[in-house]
Structures are given as structure tokens and as C-alpha cells.
């Protein structure tokens, strides 16, 4: 028996932003694909369905001519399939390799983190969003791309403006203006360093792009750097905050990871499963198809809710609980298929092996504030937007 996707229309967009998980559960229990009216999108929330979709890029394409990402950023490989995507992906690979991460990025990122913690360690309290996670993610991404040094806020603003622009389905003029402004700023920042990268090959992403065989065109470089800025800043930032939050809310787990540092990698994987920084990303149905009993018509845009799949109780026991001791099992926080996050290993290293361990090591008796609880928001992107903490200065 197959039928059209059912509809949920009795929830608001704000409910989705505040806490999407009850809604995700409702969608998951209802059908393989459900049109969620306030999101104006058909959402797929079950683990197995998303894995199946990501193994079939012919039926479920990443390419969408009407995509706002393409409009805001230009022709990026994130919105391509097959050989075109693979070529772009291969071009940036050298910057993301194991050896490069260990030998080149790790000492640099550790230094950034040390500097940031130095600057707050004596104050005894901070909001870790602005004091650590956001500058950490911004400054390390800046180095990885190969930009000249700039205030961390600049890259963070560009990133947010591009994200807002890519999700600007209401065509708000101010959001569009900001996205265009960010795009111009990025193009200029690329222009300022590109000759230097051409002349001196180095591990940065811009260098990988110009030294790839064949080298990326300037249009592709501009578009792909924008994707990397839009998609490479929030995620490590939110993963740092979510991992910290999970451990601060669960003292026994914090103690066990501090006693056994090899558990940091389990803690990191559990954090991004629990509150996945990227909660949803789109695909387009290229031909009418049956997804576990629901007919999806040709041309339909669907949203793959990996944030929901990572709490699918068909796969994870007590999925809403943060538990670093759960049996190790793959999750979808980095996506699946050909578009599997290129930054996965950098983020595992930066968040799970550098920032979080250093934070707990350096700030003694780190704890949440009862008078200022953390605030978590979002469903397309989700993470703490405020994480006020205190420690023994």
C-alpha cells in the first residue's frame, strides 16, 4: 500500500525552532515522509530511509536549479551530483588529509584555543558561545581557508549572512542585501590572497583549489569557499558547545571522560548524535518513487532530517538521552553518501581532541549557572546559542 505524504499543519515554526524533537518523533511515527506545513517542506526523519536515499543520488539529487544556495553562493559542488561533485571534492581533499590535520592544523588550532582560554581563564565566568566556541571556529576556519587574518566576527558574520540568505524563502530584502554584501566581502578576501597561494603551495584550501589538476576556475573557487564558510563555522562551534553542555549536565560522564581521555572520541560522537549541528538538508526527487510506502512525485523537494534520524528509537535506545557509554554505532551527523562531510575528521580532531579536553583541563570546576540556563535553538542548524558557565578562576 502506498499513499501520498500526510500533512502536519497544527504546529508553528517557532515550536520547530525551540524544540524540534517532539515534532520529529511525531513525523517519524506517522510516515516515511510528511509534509510539515510551517516548514513548507516534506520531511524524512527515519534513519534507514535517509541512508537509503543517500545511496541513490540518481533518484534523490543534490542538484536543484531553483536552490537558494546556488543563487546566494554560485555554482557549488555541494549542489552537484556525480563527476562534477567528485571533481570539486577531490580538489580540496589535500587540505583535509590525516597527515595534514595532524601535522599542520592540530598545532595551529591548539594555539588558537590556548590563546582564547588564556584570555578568559582569570575572569571566572563567560558565555562560551562568544568567548570560546564562535571565535575558535572562526579563527581556525580562517586559517584553513588561507585568508589573511581578520577579526573573528567578520567571518562569523559572513557565514551567518550566507546561511540566512540560503534559507531566505520569504525573499526578505534585508536578508538578501546582507548575503550579497557577505559574498562581495568573501570575493575580495579571496582576491587579496590568491596570487600568494598560486605562488606558494601550502596546506590551505585556497592553495589546494588553485593547485588542483585541473585547477578550479575563479567562479568555482568563489562559490565553493562560500559553501565552506557557510557550512564550516556553525558546525564546529555548535559541536563544541553541545559536547560541553552534555558533559556539564552529566557529572558522572564528565568524570569518566576526564579519567579516561580515550573516551573523548565517544563523547564527541555522542554529542553530535544527540544534538546534530546540521539538523536538516535538502534533496530533490528526480522521478516518481516509493519511499517506504509513501509516493514522492517527481520534482518534490524533501528535507532529510538527520537530527531526527539520530534520535530514531528504531536505531538508538533512549535516543533523547546524552550517553557517552552507548554502544558505538554510526550516526548521520556528518550526512551519508557522496556528500559526507569533508570536514568530519578536522572537526573530530578540533572539537573532540583539542578544544573540549583543553577547556575542561584548564577551567577547574567548570559548571553551568542556575541563574542563567543555556539556550538551545534551531532545527535546520541546531546548537546552544548561549552557554553561560562559571569556574574557579
Amino acid at each position: 500500500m502506498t499513499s501520498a505524504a500526510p500533512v502536519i499543519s497544527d504546529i508553528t515554526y517557532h515550536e520547530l525552532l525551540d524544540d524540534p524533537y517532539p515534532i520529529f518523533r511525531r513525523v517519524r511515527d506517522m510516515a516515511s515522509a510528511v509534509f510539515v506545513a510551517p516548514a513548507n517542506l516534506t520531511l524524512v526523519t527515519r534513519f534507514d530511509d535517509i541512508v537509503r536515499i543517500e545511496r541513490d543520488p540518481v533518484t534523490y539529487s543534490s542538484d536543484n536549479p531553483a536552490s537558494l544556495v546556488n543563487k546566494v553562493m554560485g555554482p557549488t559542488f555541494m549542489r552537484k551530483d556525480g563527476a562534477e561533485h567528485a571533481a570539486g571534492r577531490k580538489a580540496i581533499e589535500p587540505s583535509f588529509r590525516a597527515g595534514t590535520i595532524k601535522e599542520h592544523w592540530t598545532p595551529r588550532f591548539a594555539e588558537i584555543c590556548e590563546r582564547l582560554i588564556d584570555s578568559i581563564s582569570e575572569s571566572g565566568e563567560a558565555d562560551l558561545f562568544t568567548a570560546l566556541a564562535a571565535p575558535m571556529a572562526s579563527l581556525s576556519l580562517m586559517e584553513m581557508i588561507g585568508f589573511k587574518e581578520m577579526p573573528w566576527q567578520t567571518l562569523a558574520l559572513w557565514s551567518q549572512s550566507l546561511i540566512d540568505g540560503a534559507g531566505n524563502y520569504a525573499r526578505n530584502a534585508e536578508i538578501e542585501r546582507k548575503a550579497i554584501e557577505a559574498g562581495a566581502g568573501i570575493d575580495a578576501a579571496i582576491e587579496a590572497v590568491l596570487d600568494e597561494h598560486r605562488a606558494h603551495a601550502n596546506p590551505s584550501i585556497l592553495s589546494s583549489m588553485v593547485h588542483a589538476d585541473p585547477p578550479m576556475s575563479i567562479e568555482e573557487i568563489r562559490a565553493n569557499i562560500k559553501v565552506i564558510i557557510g557550512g564550516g563555522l556553525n558546525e564546529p562551534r555548535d559541536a563544541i558547545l553541545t559536547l560541553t553542555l552534555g558533559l556539564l549536565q552529566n557529572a558522572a560522564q564528565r568524570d569518566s571522560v576526564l579519567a579516561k581521555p580515550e573516551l573523548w572520541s565517544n563523547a564527541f560522537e555522542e554529542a553530535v548524535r544527540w544534538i546534530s549541528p546540521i539538523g536538516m538538508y535538502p534533496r530533490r526527487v528526480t522521478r516518481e518513487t516509493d519511499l517506504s510506502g509513501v509516493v514522492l512525485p517527481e520534482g518534490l523537494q524533501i528535507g532529510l532530517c538527520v537530527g531526527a534520524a539520530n534520535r530514531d528509537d528504531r536505531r538508538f535506545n533512549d535516543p533523547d538521552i546524552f550517553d557517552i557509554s552507548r554502544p558505538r554505532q554510526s550516526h548521520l551527523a556528518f550526512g551519508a553518501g557522496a556528500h559526507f562531510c569533508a570536514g568530519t575528521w578536522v572537526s573530530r580532531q578540533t572539537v573532540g581532541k583539542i578544544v573540549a579536553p583543553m577547556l575542561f583541563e584548564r577551567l577547574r570546576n567548570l559548571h553551568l549557572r542556575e541563574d542563567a540556563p543555556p539556550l538551545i535553538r534551531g532545527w535546520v542548524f541546531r546548537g546552544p546559542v548561549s552557554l553561560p558557565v562559571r569556574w574557579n578562576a
Partner: protein
Amino acid sequence: MPKITFVCADGATREVIADLDQSIMEAALAAGVPGIVAECNGAAACATCHCYFESAYAAHTGEIGEHESEMLDFTASERTAESRLSCQVRVAAGMEGMTVRVPPTQ
């Protein structure tokens, strides 16, 4: 179409008749061999299709690429001289009778 035997970590074996235009990872997934996750579906980005290949068949499994070799440093189970990412190994006629060991974790 060679017959390849997958040996899982618990000792269970699965014989698979593999198509020549596939990777070992694809052949294993198509046959439902447990223990091969292949999160990135062949992009050599996730290191979750790690397997051990008999060195006797090295001429057929081919050279390890630079990127694959670095990804193998990320595998959850120990990397050995027999380690490959099965998504990067193409099925070849000369693989008849080859055994591929699946590691305990990916």
C-alpha cells in the same frame, strides 16, 4: 564474476559472486555483508568500509592511493599491511577465491 569470501569478525563467512564493474564495498553491501558501514558511499571520506585483503591478491587489488592511505590512519580497527578501504578496490577477475576479512569495528 569472481567468488569472494567475506569473513566477519565473529568468524561467520559469506560467499559473494561479485560483478566486475563494482567496488568490493558495493559488492559487500549488495550482498548484505555485516560490518561494512560505508557511510560516505565510496567517496573515501569516512573510513567505515575498512577491510583486510590477503596479500597474495595484491596484484589484483591494486595500489593504495595517497588519499586512501591517509584515510586508513583514521580506521577504528587496527591498520595492518592488509588494510584497504574496500570502496577503493575494484572487483577483478583474478580475485576468484579471495578472502576479505571484515574488522570488528568501523
